[in-house]
């Protein structure tokens, strides 16, 4: 990973995302191989590694009889650096966590509130690396936006974020690079832009009159569907050759859609090894 980037860790359920994260945190020991963060082995130098990261588990195991405030206090005391109470307060405000809610036992919290508290405990030490497992699971759309803003903020301040997710639009929106895991193996490691380029733009050309389908298409074009007055194509790379082809035809409308990550990743998900 590159410092200051947001890295999406993708895969279907059971692909091994959470297991990988638990290996990085030395909660699970690998049968073979090794993992390292900041150049230090996650097992042999686990304490120094974990001193520099914040972690949001997929299912945070909060005690129902503890209040939110007591939980944050406890986890803050276990952090490597003293917690900046101002930062903690800002995080709580940002996630619209009322002070009164902090005084309630956590058994009374909804799933979303627990998730918000999980996010706060991960971010409150302001660590250089954040490891987040399915961070927006259980958050409503407005809170998801707040979370994305929060992630953008920490990136601006040079922090690195490693987040697992299976919500592709979320990954597309916030991540710089992605890794895709399938059956415990890494099958794709790329920037989001490069993956989008792999997908190709979807182009729909509508004609004012019937046109004849050309016998040979430009190399960059992949035909999806054709009709006498409409072509649907996928263009990989420059759109110039297609523009030249349709330039002489009675074009009524030209609709170019940017590709979605989803289109490529679904193929990776489905493709057998």
């Amino acid at each position, binding site marked *: 990973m590159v410092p200051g980037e947001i890295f999406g860790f993708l895969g279907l359920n059971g692909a091994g995302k959470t297991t990988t994260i638990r290996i990085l*945190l030395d909660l699970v020991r690998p049968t073979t191989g090794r993992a390292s963060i900041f150049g230090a082995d996650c097992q042999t130098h686990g*304490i120094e590694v974990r001193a520099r990261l914040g972690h949001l588990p997929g299912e945070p195991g909060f005690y129902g009889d503890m209040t939110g405030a007591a939980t944050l206090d406890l986890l803050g005391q276990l952090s490597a650096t*003293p917690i900046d109470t101002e930062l903690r307060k800002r995080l709580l405000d940002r996630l619209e966590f009322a002070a009164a809610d902090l005084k309630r036992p956590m058994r009374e919290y909804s799933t979303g509130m627990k998730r918000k508290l999980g996010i706060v405990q991960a971010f409150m030490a302001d660590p250089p690396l954040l490891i987040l497992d399915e961070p927006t699971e259980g958050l409503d759309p407005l809170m998801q936006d707040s979370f994305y803003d929060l992630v953008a903020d920490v990136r601006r301040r040079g922090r690195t974020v490693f987040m697992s997710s299976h919500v592709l639009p979320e990954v597309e929106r916030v991540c710089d690079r992605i890794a895709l895991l399938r059956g415990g193996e890494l099958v794709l490691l790329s920037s989001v832009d490069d993956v989008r380029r792999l997908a190709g733009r979807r182009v729909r050309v509508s004609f004012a009159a019937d046109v004849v389908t050309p016998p040979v298409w430009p190399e960059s074009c992949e035909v999806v569907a054709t009709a006498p007055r409409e072509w649907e194509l996928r263009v990989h790379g420059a759109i110039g050759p297609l523009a030249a082809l349709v330039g002489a035809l009675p074009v009524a409308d030209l609709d170019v859609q940017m590709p979605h990550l989803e289109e490529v990743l679904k193929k990776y998900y489905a493709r057998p090894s």
Partner: protein
Amino acid sequence: MSSPVVVLARHSLRRMRPILIGMAIVLCGFQFLLTQVASYLFRSGGFNLMPSLVPDFVQQMAGPSMLAMMSFQGIVAFGYFHPFVLAAHLGLAIAIATEPAGEVETRFADLTLARPIARYQAITRTAVLLFAVEAAVIVGMMASTWTGLLCCTPREAPRPDASVIRWLAVMLGAVSLCWGGIALALASGARRRATAGGTAAIAALAAFLLDYLGRIWEPARLVSRLSPFHYFEPMTVAGGLPPSVGDVVVLLSIAAAATSIAYIVFGRRDL
């Protein structure tokens, strides 16, 4: 900043506070109550009548320790090895010692051990807590015994020797720590607290019965040496015989060995 062991221990104590306070009140109250029972029997001359109420063959089977128990000192000392007291101490020790398994089960360990804390610190926390709570409860029991003896007992009543009560307390503490250590070893490898606690409780009951069998049935005497309760002989101390330091050493050695196993197992396991 405080050491993680101190922070975790404080957190555990806070969570267990109701059960610890409740248990301490019951056990301390029980000691006080026994001093008052002994006082009542002393005042009413009950101790003179008691031997005549027990048939001769029972007295012969039980030996001189039984007669010793039918005295003021015996009743007071009984509070340190009464089955209820023993069960309460073992239950408390097992409840404290199985916390690591509870934290794995609830996934609270994911939050704490994802921070710069070594796994051994979680076990150290539990071991320290186990020792501290046992010590505190036993000291409270001794204080209740002496309070009862000093404030509300006839002056002429033959009070037990302080060293006898001290030794009984040490033996009770040793057997509790022994089973706490065993429960900690089981909890260090378990995914569920109930599994570790249940196994430890069943093992304690089986060991208790094995020891009992060894005491009443000669062929089982050798095997009963495997039971930690074989090294818990409070009746002899209560009967006025000198305590066996070796027995206490054996119990504490089992506790130490089991705790060492817990460190190794918890350090190597997947959480």
